[in-house]
């Protein structure tokens, strides 16, 4: 049985607001979460949901109003534990007087690696994030995407057991995003735990063993993307086109969406065969028939649109 890499119990964060800072605004509300070792865990939620607050609390950049958390069985207040974790902040910014190589060298010194090993690790890491050719350029000349790559490199160069990534795909082009996805999958293959926040749901669906949805500081649901998206079949999508001289039934044309010569219609599962019969009768060419399942995006919107009180009812699999 695997042990928990991250355990969060009742984590709460209030911020003072207003001119006199007497009123408190709750940014995170009694978060309970457990992430197993070796998992890729996606932390989803719209802007202001409390994702970054959670990560900052885990990194001890801010302190909780209530609750506790443990990483690899050790208190988050234990800085020695930080040897085994890596963190990419949201929109990272680094010492711009340093080059990428110098920055990684600076950070890996804290992990106590000897100079020769640091040199090898850094060279390999720069290669892995596609920055070998810019290794000796000062960071003030780097684009946003390049800084993001440096950020990912510094989070994993010291071979951490648990990696926290706050919006790792942010600022990256499609090639960069694919490379980061590959890095995350590599980390999983090496048995590392990856906890990443994102609002790009397709990335989470593609990568994550489990996801949690956070909204207005409250946990709205936790589960495997596969479980979430295969709960029900919404309907069936039929793609078809007419043959010359054979008009299509008017009711189908009115319900379908036309793109060029092709029509797309979505019907309930029970209406599949009658619809196919109609199409056969007018000799229509059937191009494809596919089931329509809710995506992680549908699930996400369903959760964030629900009132706060109802959130417990939509949890799929709370560990």
């Amino acid at each position: 049985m695997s042990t928990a890499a991250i355990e969060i119990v009742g984590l709460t964060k209030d911020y003072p607001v207003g001119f006199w800072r007497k009123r408190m605004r709750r940014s995170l509300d009694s978060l309970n979460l457990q992430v197993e070792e070796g998992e890729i865990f996606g932390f989803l939620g719209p802007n202001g949901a409390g994702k970054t607050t959670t990560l900052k609390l885990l990194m001890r950049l801010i302190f909780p109003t209530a609750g506790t958390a443990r990483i690899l069985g050790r208190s988050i207040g234990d800085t020695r534990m930080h040897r085994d974790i890596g963190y990419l902040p949201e929109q990272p910014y680094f010492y711009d007087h340093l080059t990428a190589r110098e920055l990684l060298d600076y950070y890996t010194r804290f992990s106590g690696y000897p100079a020769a090993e640091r040199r090898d690790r850094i060279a390999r890491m720069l290669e892995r994030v596609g920055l070998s050719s810019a290794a000796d350029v000062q960071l003030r000349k780097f684009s946003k995407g390049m800084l993001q790559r440096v950020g990912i490199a510094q989070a994993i160069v010291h071979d951490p057991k648990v990696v926290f990534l706050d919006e790792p795909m942010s600022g990256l082009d499609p090639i960069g995003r694919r490379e980061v996805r590959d890095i995350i999958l590599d980390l999983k293959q090496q048995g590392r735990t990856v906890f990443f926040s994102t609002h790009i749901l397709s990335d989470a669906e593609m990568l994550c063993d489990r996801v949690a949805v956070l909204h207005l500081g409250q946990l709205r649901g936790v589960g495997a993307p596969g479980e979430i998206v295969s709960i029900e079949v919404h309907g069936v999508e039929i793609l078809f086109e007419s043959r010359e001289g054979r008009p299509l039934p008017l009711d189908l044309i009115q319900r379908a969406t036309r793109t060029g010569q092709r029509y797309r219609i979505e019907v309930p599962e029970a209406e599949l065969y009658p619809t196919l019969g109609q199409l056969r009768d007018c000799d229509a060419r059937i191009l494809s028939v596919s089931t329509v399942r809710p995506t992680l995006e549908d699930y996400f919107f369903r959760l964030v649109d629900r009132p706060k009180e109802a959130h417990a009812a939509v949890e799929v699999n709370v560990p």
Partner: protein
Amino acid sequence: MSSLPGIVAINTFREAVRDRVLYNLIFFALIMIGAAIIVGQISIGIERQVIVNLGLSAISIIGLIMAIFIGVGLVYKEIEKRTLYSLLSKPLPRWEFLTGKYVGLLITLTVNTFFMTLGLAAALFYVGRPFVRSDVSILVAIYFILLELALVTAFALFFSCFSSPMLSTLFTLGIYVAGVFAPDIRNLGDLTHNSAIQSGARAIYYVLPNFHNFNSIALAAHGDAIPLALLWQNTLYALLYVVLLLLASSAVFSRRNLK
């Protein structure tokens, strides 16, 4: 220097060098060159006194400007630019980060002061004055300036742990000016013959850092010897004050929520 504060200190020094902080040396060099040329022509017999006075004052003022303006940004800049986020995710306790930043700026100030001392020596050499044994007092005066800068930097760092750079600058400058006049505050109280005011003035005198004792520019300019006891007293005083301020800074910063 492979301890955690040492790693931070080296980076802080490197940042100062690459941000061209040491360019102020050009300004100092211009002052010394100008002074040496002008003093050589208008002063007769007191070239040494004028050059030493001017040189040590310039070393002190330039050092103070650097200590305050870089010191107040030491922590603030790291928070504002969010460079601290990734740094504190490393196995680096906050107090060691603070110590490293402090030592890094101290190294910068020491290197800067070293080059300014060379400039002063060159100016003295230019006016044709041979070096004599009593010139040791110039080096002691420079050492006191460094102690003063160490203390000012510690104050700047302390204030920057909880306030903005502008307020930290005002607070540090205020403490410095009050500290320079600390003995005058005590004397003012003594003049009143009112025991309550006298006690209050003495309390302020003892609480404020006594920057007055670090100023031995006049002694050095006149070639007078600086008492050995003052050397020990100032060293221990500065050391104790700096340690207390670093402890207070760590206590404040360790509880601070970053934005």
